[in-house]
């Protein structure tokens, strides 16, 4: 399988600390790749660099076979979107408008109605799947944490991306919502979307992801299927050791 995303030699320093240190890995097209590691190992920084929110000090990103200089708008248009650990929604817009505004319409559609019939049908179908149809017309600022998390994910899918970066999809939500998340990651994956998932909930990751990338001190130490990662002594040392 080809790599849809590839990072080569990414380095990012904050003061004297290297959040990413010559980090290199690839994400195969059609995979659900997990990115795990103890706090401060560089997972979120890697996300921020890949999605264009943080400029790296060195290294490069290749997406869909092309070398890119990531910038959020550019990555979105190229087919890569992300969610945030603390879900970020547009509070004054309704939940429905939150999904529609993320459809990435071309610039010349700016003066068409906020929610066209076609937008509404697609967005409502998506929200129905996520169990959000009941709150579609509420301002997103009124939704609960779990609902916002689902809303941010649904909105990310609205632009029909090739790849989605999920930042801790199950963090801080009820088991029921986590299950909905998992189901949707799987069904989108079956529809052809590639995922890169940062997650601390290990049982969630082990069920969902293959392969896993284990980060420590700004670079991957092991890349492989869950069984291999679980058996690796280095992982036990750095990752689980850090927990004790």
């Amino acid at each position, binding site marked *: 399988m080809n790599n849809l995303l590839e990072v080569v030699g990414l380095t990012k320093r904050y003061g004297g600390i290297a959040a990413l240190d010559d980090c290199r890995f690839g994400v195969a097209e059609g995979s659900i790749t997990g990115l795990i590691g103890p706090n401060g190992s560089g997972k979120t920084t890697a996300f921020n660099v890949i999605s264009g*929110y943080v400029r790296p000090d060195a290294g490069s990103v290749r997406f869909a076979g092309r070398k890119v200089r990531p910038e959020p708008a550019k990555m979105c248009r190229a087919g890569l979107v992300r969610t945030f650990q603390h879900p970020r929604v547009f*509070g004054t817009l309704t939940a429905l408008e939150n999904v529609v505004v993320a459809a990435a319409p071309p610039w010349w559609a700016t003066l068409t109605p906020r929610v066209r019939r076609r937008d509404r049908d697609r967005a409502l179908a998506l929200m129905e799947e996520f169990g959000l149809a009941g709150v579609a017309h509420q301002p997103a600022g009124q939704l609960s944490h779990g609902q916002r998390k689902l809303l941010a994910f649904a909105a990310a899918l609205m632009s029909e991306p090739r790849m989605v970066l999920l930042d801790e999809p199950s963090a801080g939500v009820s088991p029921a919502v986590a299950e909905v998340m998992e189901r949707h990651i799987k069904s989108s994956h079956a529809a052809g979307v590639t995922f890169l998932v940062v997650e601390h909930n290990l049982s969630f990751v082990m069920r969902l992801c293959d392969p896993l990338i284990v980060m420590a001190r700004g670079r991957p130490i092991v890349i492989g299927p869950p069984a291999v990662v679980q058996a690796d002594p280095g992982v036990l040392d750095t990752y689980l050791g850090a927990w004790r």
Partner: protein
Amino acid sequence: MSARGGALRRARSGGLWAGFFAALLALPVVLNAHWLLNIAVFTLMFAVLATAWNLVGGYAGYPSLGHGALFGIGAYAEALLFAGRDVGAGYGPFLAAAPIGVAVALAALPVAWIAMRTRAEVFAIVTITLLFITQALAFNLRGLTGGAQGIALPVPPFAERTFEWPYYYALLALLAVALGAAFAVDRTKLGSALLAIRADEDKARGVGVHVTFVKLLAFGLSAAFTAAAGAIWAYYVSFVYPQFAIDPFIAIAMVLMTYLGGRATLWGPVLGAFLLAPAQQLLAYQFGSSRLYLVAYAAVFLVVILALPRGIVPTLAAARQPGPAYHVSVDRVRARRERIGS
């Protein structure tokens, strides 16, 4: 949300619009004193200015304090076009307001493009700096602006008894167009994109909102109406000089009126202008040129911030529709705290 409820709401809002403009059309006939018509002219002007400011300061969440400069440039453009000319029946200078608005908007876009790379407080400071730079230029480019002496405009041959009427109706027409534009912004993807930017610009960028394009579009629209109002104002007062035409007070007034009525609402800025502009004019009549009314303005600002942080229209809407309050401010704090890389 039933289709019938939608139709009813549309009919009601259509009735509101029609009633509002019908009342304003008839007003000059009722107000037969010059001083009252003078207040009405300024009220309409500030309604246009607040409606225009709301597009940038309300919908996009970019608190511009530099709109006074756009107003002043519009005023100077009108003065330079017509100073020492014969204006015939006197209606040409009204028509000139439209091309002046478009030209000022186009000229302002490169500046806005740079200024809008900053946000929030920094943007406010950058834009107020632009205001004072413009004022300094008006003082010092004597060959063009006449410096501190200013420029006189021709006085048109309007009948004495109805002298204010043409200005009043010109501004009413401008208000209708500005409100129409604001309505269009509110109902289209431009409006939802601007509100998304206001809530969380970084996130908006990442979901494919054309951030720079819609910000500049909103600024251009806003600048056009602001400058056009400045042009009509210059013709009305028939004299421009730097500290009068490029006045921080005008820049603050449109902000305050929008805040009072309600940011990012259609009627909020108009309501704010209709409350504050007459009050300010009356206070100015009472206390002459002592500018004591500025103290009253500061008091209004404090009351708005303490008692009505979201403005009158959103507060009333929330009171009519029970439910949890919007968590907008919480969202913004969270977004700021989380802003990546800083």
